[in-house]
């Protein structure tokens, strides 16, 4: 069929336990033309990543998992799913404080929406 189909929206996994922030970032992801997938915890996120092979971008709040260092989870994601692009944010850390996984990008809280949108769009060109 010759008619155009809407471009399939790319799924972006949002790992954020703070409801207001999660709502905001889901809204941002959707407005930017992506398909948000929400995870409220690290365990939740790992399970989703294991089930859904189509996720190519992860947005993760490093402040979230208080019991485990968020940056280690990010490193784990990078190791287990090398193609996945990672966007990190944190209030507790600054970029200089952490060892960033390869290709990951960091935006301190409070995030500037246009920077996150630009980052996601830039990353889709890599895919």
């Amino acid at each position: 069929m010759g008619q155009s189909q809407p471009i399939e929206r790319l799924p972006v996994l949002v790992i954020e336990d703070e409801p207001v922030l999660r709502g905001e970032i889901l809204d941002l992801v959707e407005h930017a033309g992506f398909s948000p997938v929400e995870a409220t915890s690290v365990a939740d996120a790992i399970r989703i990543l294991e089930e859904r092979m189509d996720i190519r971008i992860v947005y993760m709040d490093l402040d979230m998992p208080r019991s485990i260092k968020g940056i280690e989870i990010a490193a784990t994601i990078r190791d287990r799913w090398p193609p996945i692009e990672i966007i990190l944010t944190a209030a507790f850390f600054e970029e200089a404080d952490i060892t960033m996984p390869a290709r990951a990008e960091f935006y301190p809280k409070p995030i500037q929406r246009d920077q996150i949108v630009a980052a996601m769009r830039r990353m889709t060109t890599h895919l």
Partner: protein
Amino acid sequence: MSGMERLTRQHDWSSTALGAYGTWPQSLRTTVEIMLASGHAMCVMWGPDLTFLYNDAYAPFLGTRHPAALGKPAKVVWPDVWNDIEPLIERTFRGENCTFHELPMTMTRHGFEEETWWDFSYSPVREESGDVAGLLNVTSESTARVLALRQRDAAVKELRTSEGRLAALVEASSDSLYSMSPDWREMKQLDGRGFIANTDAPSVRWMDTYLFPEDRAEVSHSIDAAVTAAVPFELEHRVRRADGTVGWTFSRAVPVQGTDGRIVEWFGMAADVTARHQAEAALRESEAFMASVLASSTDCIKVLDLDGNLTFMSEGGMDVMEISDFNDVKGCPWPDFLKGDGVALAYGALEEARHGRSAHFVTPADTFAGTPRYWSVSVSPILGADGRTERILSVSRDITELEHAREKQQLLNGELAHRIKNTLSVVQAIAHQTLGQVTDECAMKAFGDRIAALAASHNLLTGQDWSSAQLDDVARSAVSTFGADRFMVSGPSIGIGPRATLSLSLMLHELATNAVKYGALSVPEGKVTLRWTVGDEKMDLVWQEQGGPPAVEPTRRGFGSRIIRMGLIGSGGVNLTYGTEGLTMEASAPLHQVQEA
């Protein structure tokens, strides 16, 4: 037959007043016989001429007159003493018994001359008619007695001299003198010499005068012991001084014995040792005070030798260092107790101390029992009389609690910064969710960016416990998201307070935002110079845009414009110039306001 007996028998008596031996009356014969037979020195003077007869023992009295004296009249024999003895002879012939004592005689009896003393006793001898016809002189030697007496006299004289010396000595001393009855119940006399009161007449109430009630038992005990053992009494004790105040005396008394060996009195001297005692008490008090200060300090106070080895540690210091026996660490090099940088810092401080300077540092160190602690350490020289460092004082204060509190505070500061930024994120999210549908995209972005600028400024403050931030950091942080390569930032290092940090962060954010929209940063070749200077009392900051379009004063003053005009400390002091090269902003503010917390 003795010499004198033979001489007497052979003598031609007929030529004497006595007449031939055969004609002598019985009384004369008997007297002469007794005399010649006696071992005592005797002589007889008989008849009208006082004819002289003597025995062997008497011969030495005569010296060279012997033996010619035999049969001579006494007056002829003793012309030299005749005047002395004639009256005695006369009295004897009148029937009296005359004696005289201790007549000195130089005699050669044992081959050498010696002084002798004699007692003479003249006894009348009556003849048959009852009249006194002669005189018998019986002598006895009193040399021994005389010599004994002489020795005694000499001894007495010597004693007097000695007593005089003693008296002079006693007089010269400032000590009080006293004499006591044998059992010490009575004080016979005391010369107080101004130190204590005098006792001129014997008194049994002397303790009332000289002793304080609470001291009596001790003094009495010592007295009893001395009296019982008859040994010198010696005691240092408190005494009531002449002016009634408390004094101290060193009192010593010796027993004086009578001829029968019994103690007749005690003689003593009491020295005023009040000053020494007070000095000693003051010293003891001072030493006790210093010791108690050292012991009660919770600082670890140590004295080191010049090589830094431990020679002393305070009691309280052993407690905090958990050392039970100083010998365990005595002589050990002190720096080796420290950890990390502390070892090098300690050796450096010792070197300073050896040169007479003090040093201070903070170091971790384990206690002797292995408990990890933090210490604030002061090392200072202990100078000798010559001004050179003799020993080294090291005082360590346990600041573990403080250090933990500091660490905790840093954690809390980090947590607080995190929460502020998180909260600002939530505020931003709520605002967007609430107003996003009814507000244009630009306004929402401006809001988000301002919130982000505010959050970034907080970041800078947490590094210094919310008290200050470096202006350079604030400036670079504020413009970082606008492309650092477009800015030339320069100025001296200066810390600014939290208020200035917030207002400057927001101001620079607005200036940069405007520059991107309308100013130098709206064209690729535009630049911004940001520089500041710091004077004694004020600081100036200049934002100068170059290479962009000519600046135009905005017709409407919005929130951003107001933030810029608030200046460095939120109260103005801003001058804006809209030049053809671009905007120039000059802001200045009093330094103390920029820096105040």
